[in-house]
C-alpha cells in the first residue's frame, strides 16, 4: 500500500517533499477508513426496505461523509500548529500530505454524493439552477473539484499555475457552501448545522491567526 501511494504520488507529480513514515501511515489509514465507511454506509442502507427512504439516507450519509473529510482537512493546519510545541511535531510535508488526502477524499465524496442525489430525482438537474440550497451545494462541489485538480503537481505544472496556493483558500468558501447547502436543504437539522457553521468560523479565524503569525515570523527572519 505504501509503495502504491508513493508510486501514484510520483506518477501524478506530487509537489510535496517526501513525507515521513507516520504521515504515510496516516494517509493510508485515511483512505482505508474512507473506503470502509463508504462501504459501511452502502451496507447499512440495505436495512431500510423502503426504497425512497433508502435513497434519501444514502444521499445524506454520503454528503455527511464528504463534509467530515472536508472539516478534517481544514483542521489539519491548526492541529499541526498545536502539536508543533510537543514532541509529536509533524513535518510540513507530513501535514500537507494528510491535508491533501482528506481534501481529495472530501472532493470524491462530494462528487459521489452529488451524482447519486441528482440521479434519484427526475428533472433534478433543472432544480439545481433554481434552488438556493442546491446551488450552494454546486458551489461547494465546484470549489472542491478545483482544489482537487490543483492538488496534483502534474496538473499545476502543465497549466503553469503560479497562484494555485492562493486558490486553495477556496476551501473555506467551499465550507460555507456546504453549511448553506445543509442548513437550507429539506432534511436540515439546524442545531447540528449551526454548530458546523460555528466550527467553520472558528477554523477560518484560527487559520487567519496562523497566517499572521507565519508572516511575523518570516519578517523576523
Amino acid at each position, binding site marked *: 500500500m505504501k509503495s502504491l501511494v508513493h508510486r501514484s504520488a510520483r506518477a501524478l507529480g506530487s509537489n510535496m517533499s517526501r513525507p515521513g513514515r507516520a504521515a504515510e501511515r496516516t494517509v493510508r489509514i485515511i483512505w482505508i477508513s474512507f473506503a470502509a465507511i463508504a462501504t459501511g454506509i452502502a451496507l447499512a442502507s440495505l436495512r431500510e426496505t*423502503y426504497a*425512497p*427512504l433508502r435513497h*434519501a439516507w444514502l444521499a445524506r450519509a454520503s454528503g455527511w461523509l464528504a463534509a467530515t473529510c472536508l472539516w478534517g482537512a481544514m483542521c489539519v493546519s491548526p492541529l499541526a500548529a498545536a502539536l508543533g510545541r510537543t514532541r509529536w511535531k509533524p513535518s510540513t510535508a507530513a501535514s500537507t500530505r494528510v491535508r491533501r488526502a482528506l481534501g481529495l477524499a472530501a472532493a470524491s465524496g462530494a462528487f459521489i454524493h452529488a451524482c447519486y442525489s441528482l440521479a*434519484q*430525482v*427526475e*428533472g*433534478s438537474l*433543472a*432544480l439545481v439552477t433554481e*434552488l*438556493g*440550497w442546491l*446551488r*450552494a451545494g*454546486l*458551489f461547494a462541489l*465546484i*470549489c472542491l473539484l*478545483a482544489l482537487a485538480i490543483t492538488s496534483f503537481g502534474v496538473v499545476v505544472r502543465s*497549466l*503553469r*499555475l*503560479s*497562484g494555485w*496556493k*492562493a*486558490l486553495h*483558500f*477556496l476551501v473555506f*468558501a467551499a465550507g460555507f*457552501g456546504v453549511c*448553506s447547502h445543509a*442548513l*437550507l*436543504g*429539506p*432534511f*436540515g*437539522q*439546524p*442545531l447540528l448545522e*449551526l454548530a458546523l457553521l460555528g466550527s467553520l468560523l472558528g477554523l477560518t479565524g484560527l487559520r487567519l491567526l496562523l497566517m499572521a503569525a507565519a508572516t511575523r515570523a518570516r519578517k523576523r527572519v
Partner: protein
Amino acid sequence: MGLSLRRQWLVLGLAAGLWSCAPEPSLLALLGAYFAALLLLELPPGRRVADALSPAAVLLLSAALAAPGIAYGLRAGDELLSREGLFGASARLADRARLQWLPAIAPGLLTGDRPQTLFVYAPGAPKLELSLGGRARNLAGEALGEGVFRVEYDPRKDGMPPSAGGEAKVQVRVGQHTHERTLRAVTPLAHPRWFCVAPDRRLAACVSEETDELFWFDGSGLVRRTRTGDGPVDCAFIAADEIAVSFNHQTRLELHRAGDPAPRSLELGAPQGRMARSPSGHLLSVSLHGAHPALAFVQLASLSQLQRLPLSGAADWLEFGPDDDSLVLATRRDATLTRVTRPPGGSYALDRTLELGRPAVTLARDASGQTLWAATTDLHPRQTPQLGNHFVDDQLLEIDSAQLSVRSQLRTARRSERQTRAGDVDLGLSPSGLHQARDLGWLVAFAGSDELARIGTGGGGARLPPQSLDLEPSGLYAPHGVAELADGTLLVSSPVAGAVGVLAPGETRPQVVQLARDDAWLLSHDRAALARRVGERGFYEATRSGIACQSCHIHADSDDAAYNLGDRRLLPTLTVRGLLGTAPYLRDGSYPRLRDLHEVADDRYRGYRRRQAARELTLEAFVEALPRPERPGRFEALDRAAVQRGLRAFVQARCPSCHTPPAFTNLSQVPMGQLFPELPAELGSELVDTPSLLSVSATAPYLSDGRAATLRDVIERHNGRNQHGDVKSLHQAARRDLLTFLESL
C-alpha cells in the same frame, strides 16, 4: 506584501469587477468570475502587471477593479440573498430548530378562547407533564406511542399561563428532567359580529365567540352584557326578550332570557353554527357542524329537537322562506344555495340546489321571505375557470326563494373621486353584512371599504348610492353586522375594533360603544394585542384592485373555492389558520416569512389606499395568532386503541420522515415528481411544501392541487407508485387505523 498575496488581491479585485457583468447576481457567477480572474492573471501580461506593481499600487488597482462589483453587490443584495435561498432563512431555521429541539411542542400557540390539543414529541419518555405556570393547572400528556404525547388543554378549566409580551414559558416534565419551552399566548379581545333583531325591533343582540359574551342593544346603546357558554357563534331572538345562542366549542344550545342568570339549554350533540327562526316563531333551525353535518329543527314551545336532516357539508347561512315549510341554506364546501322544504304533515327534505361557483359570504331574507339577498365574490355556476389572477368580483345577488334562481346581480365595487388611476376601486368592497331596513330598502356593511350603504329594494333596479357612510373616522373598521331598530337607530358592528356603532336617526356620525379595550389602552398595556388588531384591520381592508385577504380567506378560513394563481391552473384556497411556526409558506414554500406576502398586495393588486406603517408586521402578528382549524370529530368519542395502532402504522409507512412529530411536518420542500412520479414531467419538477398534518381532517381537499377529496384518496388513490409513504406495506386494518390517527390530529 509578498508576490502571491499581491496576485491574490488583484484576482479578488478583478473577480469582483467581472462579477458586475453577470446578468443576474449569484454566488456561482462570483465563483466563475474568480476562476476567470485567476486565469487572466496567470497569462504573461497579467503576471507582468502583478510583478511590476508596488503593494500600494496593487491595493489601489484592486479597489478600482472591485468598485463596480461592490456597487453591483450592494444594489442587488436582496436579489442575491433571495436567489441563494438566504432571504428570510433565519425564520425558517428558527422554526425548524424549535421543532427539532426535544421535547418539542406543537402547535406553538395557546389561545384563551377555546379548548385545544397540543402534541409533544419526547422519544423514549414514558410519562410527560406540562406545567403552564401561574395559576394554571398542570396538564398530563397521554402517551400515544413512538414518543408522541397528546395534551388536552381547556383555558376555561385549566387557566391561562402568565405571559409577558405575548409569550408564555411552559415547563415540560419528562421523568426527573424539566425543560422550558416558549409558546405564543394569545388572549383574544371581544369580537361582536352579526346582529339578531327582536321581532318587534326594540332590541338587537350579537355575540363574541372569543370572549363568550352576548351583548344586548336598544336605541340608547348597550343595555346588557351576558356571559354565555364556550364559543358563541350566532344568536336568534325566539321571543321579545329571549335569545337562542349557538356554540362552536360545546354541544349545548343555550336560551338566554333578559335578566335571568341561568339560561335554559338543549343538548344537540354537535357544535353548532348559524341559526334561523321560522316566520311563525315556532321553530328554530340550527346548522350542526362537526363530523356529521346536519340541520336540526328545534320546536321552541317544547324545546325539543323535531328533526335532524343530514347534509353533505355544514351550512354557513340559513334563512327561512315565506313560511315555516321552506328554508334556504348556503354551503361553503360546494358553493351552493340549497332549498329545504317540508310537505304538509311531512318532514324536511332537500329540494333543489343553486350553484353559485363561489360561496355566499352572507345571506339575508326580506320581510316576506319571497326574496333573499346573498353576497358573494363571483357568480360562475358552471365551474368555468376565471383566468384573472385571484379573480374577485364582489356582488350582491337577489334570489327568488320560491324558484331558487338569481333574479338580479348587483356588482358593488366602484370608485370614488379620491382614486386616481383608471381601474382603481375603493367603495363597495367585501360586503359582509346585509339587513332589510324598515322602509324595505337594504343596509349593507362593506368590510373591505369600511362603509355602510343603503340600497333600494332590488327588482333589477337596485343601485348603490354614489356616497355611503364612511365608518373609518369613527374607528369602526371592517364592519360585519348591521341592524335597524324600531326607532330608526342603526347598529353597526366592528369585530376588528371590538366595538358597535350606534347611529341615531338624523345623525351622521355613530356613537361608538367599545366592547373590548380601545387602541389607546392597548398601546400602553398590550402592544402585541394592538399589533394583532391592526393586522386584522389590514386583513379585511381591500386593495385598490378591490381584493382583500378576506375575499378568498373568508374570516381567515378557506372559501373552499379554486383560483387561478397565475399559471391558469385552478388551485384550492388554503386556510390561513395554524400557521405559526411553519415557515416557509405557500404551496411551494417560496415565502420564508408571512410578512413577505405583503408584496403581493403591493405589486399585483395596486396596494392599499390607507397608508399604514409596518402593515406587513401587524398582518403577520394577526395571522400567527390564529388557532389551527377545529377538528370536525372533536366531540366524537376517540377510539384510543385505534389511534395508537394508527400511529404505529404511520411510522411503519415511514410518514414521519417528512411529517415529523410534533407538528407532523419537517418544514421541507420536495420536488413533486419524487412523491408522485405519475404526474406529468412539467409538474414533477415543481416543489411542494410539506404541510403540517395537525387538523388535517378539517382542510380537505388534499394534495397541493386539491386532487384528493379525502384522506383515503391521498393514501390509496393518489399514491400509485408508493412513493408518498410506504402504504403498500400496510394491510387494510392498518390503513383504517392510519386514517383514524390522521383524523385525530
